[in-house]
């Protein structure tokens, strides 16, 4: 079948207007129309088969996991809608060619329009619910772009946003409904879903599915209470209104109801909700339309009213009502599109849409006026026009129901009243614009539009007449097949005649026309009455509501994100506490089965020193230098602890790291206040922090105790067993570091290198004020580089280097290694900086330290990479024993080279940090000597 290409053709066409925009306007319009026209042709090609009652589906798998298939169907309903969409779409393209001004970006407009057309076609032709939703959302997006086409206007932006928000919300509900329905049915394919009415309606999810679908449909079709967005969408250029609010966008909701009619309709809930919503919307729209001074406003509310009518019909749960609904869909699309276009012509040629200014246009544009009058008459339901036919059917159906019980008579009565208002506002449209005296305060003299701008209106009005007079020959087959698709079973008997004899529906029509006349004649008191109520601008209300939400959100947000790190850190600690505490409460005892070591005096003293040192650090944290001293004490005790508990490597590392840290902190402290100000912290925070910290401390301590006292079956045996044979070293810790877990070390030195780079970045262009006096107000001492210190530092340097060589060389077999050696070398060099100053050092050390980092990292990595040559994974180590004549046996190992990389990186990183930090401050300062 050819229809499969129909949704794709306009899709291809989306870019055509953009490409052809630079040519003249007619070319652009023509090029734009080309593909839709082709699509229309394809539909017409398949039309006969569909009119025969056939339905086609075609699928390609797309995202099977999601249940989303590229799947289209062509049945009566989709053909009907496709014809409307493409037909009216083409007319709108033609119309817009003349409507848009030179300033407007025509290419962009057509692009959005075609995008919208594609989306609509997709909706009506989808055979897969998810795909339907896919297109459904596309209509929201493209309608947003169309409504906001004149984006410089605030009204357009707000109107578009409102439409998007409401329809978007509906879209989300629809998605939920579709997924639920898909879950229930087990498929997203419409041909399956539409035949599962019984399954669905008896499922506990039915109510949820129904309400979600209705939310989707009602928001899109502007049903009460979601109707308010539609009038504000009139900020769009008129071709858009003509398209969106006659045949397409708002009809998408109706289409949804019609499409899912077989599976969702027929229940009491459906009837009550759908029909009452429709009825209320019908009345509300009709009533409000009368009082709108804006032409398009009137048409907008009339649209709402007619949509209500269709919804009401669909809700009536009778087969004929559904047929009537389909019929009215066609009729409304035709007359409303023409009316919008007519309104656009009036606006375009007279410069206003305000009915208080527009009067007596009959004189200026008789042809347009005639066309508009015919279309209005159709809208009012005047015989011989298509609107009359469907309205008659509607009246008939309102009579033929009983679900409201004894109050069922209300429905026809209210329908008639609605009809009367429709007649009244149609009358107003005709009388107030084309007659009723002379125009007032128009900026230009109205005249007939260009010839081809009127053509679309003429075609549509002709259709009104043709359908109105020869319904059975024109729309009959189409209506049949569409209704067949809606009902999903053979149609009942019905006749599409103009004349059914004198019956109650005819009486109702008569009453409506008479009532409409009466209402219009008495419009002045009615207007006064309406004026008593304050005008509600939905846009302002809606925007206000959103603003209120935003303000509330901001308040919530500010309360949570107070911008206080202390609070965030507290939350982190508290959260961690909340996570780790509960399991421990379930613990019987933390003491495990392992025997403990007895306590001895030295350890006790160390423990006391540790606790006292930590406590003193906290208590004196306000006196920063002293806190630092205390901290270095704690560091010392920690390293001795490591030494005591058989971790000499750790002790060495801890010692050397600690001293570098202290130097770093001292360097930094110079730029900080020496005392922390105490005033800010609130006592409650203090207590809170203290509580959390102590509790975490308790838990950490308990876990620590539990771990130490329970036996552990760990993988460490392997390391001890294989260190010598597999790694070639007897210092197991070092072998783990450079071999078993060399990758950790590899990452670790990378961290060190990156940290140095980051710090270099931080230091660059750092502006710090130098203190001229120390904290107690003393001037600084005069000698920058005490001579004795300089001499000793210089003499010690070779010794330091030798010791670092010693530590480095023994690392693999005895405590030591590249990292510690690197730190010792660094400290030796730092000591030179300290004793001689930066200038002295810079003169003598010409290398940049970040090359050290690079070389170090490369050395380590190349060592790791070397194993590739031997077909081994990264970081596979190699070692062997050699012997030289005089020297004897010795070991060579790749781990040593790896460790050399570590060594170089450490030197590079440490000195890059410290030497650059030192460079910050080479200015002269006030000292004792120059007082």
């Amino acid at each position, binding site marked *: 079948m050819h229809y499969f290409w129909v949704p794709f053709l306009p899709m291809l066409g989306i870019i055509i207007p953009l490409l052809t925009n630079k040519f003249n306007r007619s070319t652009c319009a023509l090029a734009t129309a080309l593909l839709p026209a082709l699509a229309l042709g394809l539909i017409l090609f398949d039309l006969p088969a569909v009119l025969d009652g056939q339905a086609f589906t075609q699928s390609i798998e797309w995202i099977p996991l999601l249940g989303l298939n590229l799947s289209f169907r062509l049945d009566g309903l989709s053909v009907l809608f496709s014809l409307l969409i493409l037909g009216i779409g083409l007319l709108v393209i033609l119309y817009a060619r003349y409507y848009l001004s030179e300033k407007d970006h025509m290419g962009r407009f057509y692009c959005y329009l075609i995008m919208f057309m594609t989306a609509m076609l997709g909706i009506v032709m989808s055979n897969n619910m998810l795909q339907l939703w896919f297109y459904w959302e596309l209509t929201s997006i493209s309608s947003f772009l169309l409504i906001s086409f004149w984006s410089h206007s605030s009204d357009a932006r707000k109107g578009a946003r409102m439409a998007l928000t409401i329809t978007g919300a509906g879209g989300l509900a629809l998605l939920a409904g579709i997924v639920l329905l898909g879950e229930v049915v087990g498929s997203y394919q419409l041909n399956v879903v539409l035949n599962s009415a019984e399954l669905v309606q008896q499922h506990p999810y039915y109510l949820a599915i129904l309400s979600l679908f209705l939310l989707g449909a009602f928001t899109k079709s502007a049903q009460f209470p979601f109707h308010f967005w539609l009038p504000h969408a009139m900020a769009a250029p008129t071709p858009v209104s003509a398209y969106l609010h006659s045949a397409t966008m708002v009809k998408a909701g109706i289409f949804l109801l019609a499409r899912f009619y077989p599976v969702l309709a027929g229940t009491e809930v459906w009837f009550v909700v759908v029909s009452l919503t429709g009825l209320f919307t019908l009345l509300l729209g009709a009533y409000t339309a009368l009082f709108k001074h804006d032409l398009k406003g009137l048409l907008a509310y009339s649209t709402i009213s007619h949509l209500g009518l269709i919804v009401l019909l669909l809700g009536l749960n009778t087969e004929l009502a559904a047929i009537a609904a389909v019929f009215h869909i066609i009729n409304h699309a035709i007359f409303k599109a023409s009316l919008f276009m007519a309104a656009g012509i009036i606006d375009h040629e007279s410069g206003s849409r305000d009915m208080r200014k527009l009067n007596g246009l009959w004189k200026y544009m008789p042809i347009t006026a005639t066309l508009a009058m015919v279309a209005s008459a159709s809208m009012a339901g005047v015989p011989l026009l298509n609107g009359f036919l469907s309205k008659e059917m509607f009246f008939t159906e309102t009579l033929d129901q009983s679900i409201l019980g004894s109050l069922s008579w209300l429905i026809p009565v209210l329908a008639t009243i609605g009809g009367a208002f429709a007649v009244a506002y149609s009358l107003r449209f005709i009388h107030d614009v084309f007659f009723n005296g002379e125009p007032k305060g128009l900026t230009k003299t109205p005249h007939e539009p260009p010839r081809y701008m009127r053509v679309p209106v003429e075609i549509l009005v002709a259709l009104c007449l043709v359908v109105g007079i020869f319904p059975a020959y024109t729309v009959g087959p189409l209506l049949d097949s569409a209704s067949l698709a809606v009902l999903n079973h053979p149609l009942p008997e019905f006749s599409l005649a103009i004349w059914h004899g004198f019956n109650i529906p005819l009486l109702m029509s008569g009453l409506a026309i008479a009532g409409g006349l009466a209402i219009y004649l008495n419009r002045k008191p009615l207007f006064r009455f309406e004026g008593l109520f304050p005008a509600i601008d939905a846009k302002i209300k809606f925007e206000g509501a959103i603003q209120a939400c935003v303000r509330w959100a901001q308040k919530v947000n500010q309360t949570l994100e107070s911008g206080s790190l202390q609070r965030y850190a507290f939350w982190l600690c508290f959260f961690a506490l909340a996570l780790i505490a509960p399991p421990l409460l379930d613990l019987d005892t933390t003491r495990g089965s392992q025997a403990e070591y007895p306590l001895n005096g*030295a350890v006790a003293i160390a423990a006391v020193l540790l606790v006292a040192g930590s406590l003193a650090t906290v208590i004196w944290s306000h006196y920063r230098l002293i806190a630092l001293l205390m901290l270095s004490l704690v560091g010392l005790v920690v390293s001795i602890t490591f030494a005591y508990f058989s971790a000499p490597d750790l002790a060495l590392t801890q010692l050397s790291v600690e001293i570098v840290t202290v130097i770093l902190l001292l360097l930094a402290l110079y730029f900080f206040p020496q005392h922390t100000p105490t005033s800010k912290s609130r006592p409650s925070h203090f207590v809170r922090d203290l509580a959390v910290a102590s509790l975490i401390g308790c838990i950490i301590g308990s876990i620590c105790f539990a771990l130490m006292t329970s036996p552990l079956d760990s993988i460490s045996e392997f390391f001890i067993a294989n260190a010598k044979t597999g790694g070639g070293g007897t210092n197991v810790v070092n072998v783990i570091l450079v071999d078993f877990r060399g990758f950790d070390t590899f990452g670790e030195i990378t961290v060190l290198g990156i940290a140095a780079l980051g710090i270099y970045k931080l230091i660059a262009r750092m502006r710090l004020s130098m203190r001229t006096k120390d904290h107690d107000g003393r001037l600084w001492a005069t000698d920058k580089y005490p001579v004795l210190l300089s001499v000793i530092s210089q003499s010690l340097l070779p010794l330091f280097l030798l010791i670092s060589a010693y530590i480095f060389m023994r690392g693999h077999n005895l405590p030591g290694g590249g990292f510690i050696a690197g730190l010792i070398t660094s400290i030796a060099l730092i000591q030179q900086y300290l004793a001689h100053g930066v200038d002295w050092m810079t003169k003598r050390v010409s290398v940049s330290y970040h090359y050290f980092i690079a070389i170090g990292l490369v050395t380590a990595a190349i060592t790791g990479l070397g194993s590739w040559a031997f077909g081994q994974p990264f970081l596979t180590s190699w070692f062997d024993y050699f012997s030289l004549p005089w020297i004897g046996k010795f070991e060579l190992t790749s781990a040593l080279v790896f460790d050399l990389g570590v060594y170089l990186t450490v030197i590079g990183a440490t000195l890059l940090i410290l030497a650059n930090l030192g460079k910050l401050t080479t200015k002269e300062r006030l000292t004792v000597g120059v007082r």
Partner: protein
Amino acid sequence: MLSYATLFASGLICIALALNAWRLIVGPTTPDRIIAVDTMYINSIALIILLGLYQGTTSYYESALLIALLGFVSTAAFCKYLLRGDIIE
């Protein structure tokens, strides 16, 4: 006898450490505290050597060596801080 001597000596060093800690806490001036820490470094060297003697192992040697090296650097840095504020200038 040696182990008793070692224990006894460790005891004395521990007392010495406690006295240093006392000076560290009471101050009164920052330089006083620095002396206290410096002395603690030296006392810890002694303690570590004693530990090695007690256990009959030389594996603590490097720690002692490093404390000796680094204690000096640390003290010098702290003093330089008091004198000039900026320790690397």
